């Protein structure tokens, strides 16, 4: 739809008067605007670099956090064979029949590990300790 065709001559005159009075921006506006654009782009790039550095640092910290326990973990190597543990478990069940087979086996494993792992050196609660060729509650 062409709205211009509908305008009567006197309104076209007003329209023309408005067009004739166009103002132009100052010559400095282009450099001023493009300078502001450059600044805004630089600020974005700087912010982008900082964001990248912060993300990289965060990833590094998380990586370190997770790798430290892996780097310092003590591998538990049982000093006794599987047969010894089973024998010990049977002995435990003999003197403590209220323990299930699984509990007795766990106690036997703890005792076997006692010599090499730090956490089993300070047991919490009652444990069975070997006394000579028998076991007694601590």
């Amino acid at each position, binding site marked *: *739809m062409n*709205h211009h065709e*509908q*305008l009567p001559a*006197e*309104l076209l*005159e*007003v*329209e023309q*008067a*408005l*067009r*004739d*009075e*166009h*103002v*132009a*921006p*100052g010559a400095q*506006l*282009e450099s*001023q*605007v*493009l300078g*502001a*654009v*450059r600044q*805004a*782009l630089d600020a*974005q*790039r700087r912010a982008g670099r900082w964001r990248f550095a912060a993300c990289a640092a965060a990833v590094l910290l998380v990586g370190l956090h997770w790798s430290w326990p892996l780097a310092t973990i003590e591998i538990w190597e049982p000093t006794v064979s599987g047969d010894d543990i089973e024998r010990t478990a049977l002995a435990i069940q003999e003197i403590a029949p209220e323990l299930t087979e699984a509990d007795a086996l766990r106690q036997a494993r703890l005792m076997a590990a006692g010599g090499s792992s730090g956490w089993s050196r300070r047991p919490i609660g009652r444990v069975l300790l070997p006394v000579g060729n028998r076991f007694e509650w601590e």
Partner: protein
Amino acid sequence: MGEPSAEQLLAALAAGQEWAYAALYRQFGQRLFRTAYALLGRADLAEDAVQEVFVALVRSRRVLPRVESLSGYLFVSLRRAVARIAKRQARYASEQSTLQSRQVRWVEQSMAPERRAWLQAAMERLPDAQREVIALKIDGELSFQEIAGVLDISANTAASRYRYGLEKLRALAAQDRTETDR
């Protein structure tokens, strides 16, 4: 190198390439300035508005590839900038001469400073809705369809507001001529 296509320009703007902003200024800078000037009535404020549009464009450049009409996007952004600046200026309104009190007369010669001043003052006496459509049409060089997109109205409403605005300007000029003759 010729002018880039709209798609190339949008992609380059989104990528933050400075040449694209320079090309955009060449294409739209004057139209944006004139529209802002028609709405704000002061060249310094109009320049601020144009600068705000370009800086806002940099800040939101990632969404540009999804923009359907670059001119529509720019003029919507200009409208917001003009509204912000007008709001800031309203605080100092009491220090400024009120629009109606400007003592300027209609003169017949085109490009005479008096006529320009008269037209500016008369534009300021129009309702905002009509002034905006006239500014977007005459200074922004937008079609009624594009104006409709910018103002979120129908093209017919835009055309009607334009016509009413021109009629009012004509009536103001006639009234002023009569007063001058008396």
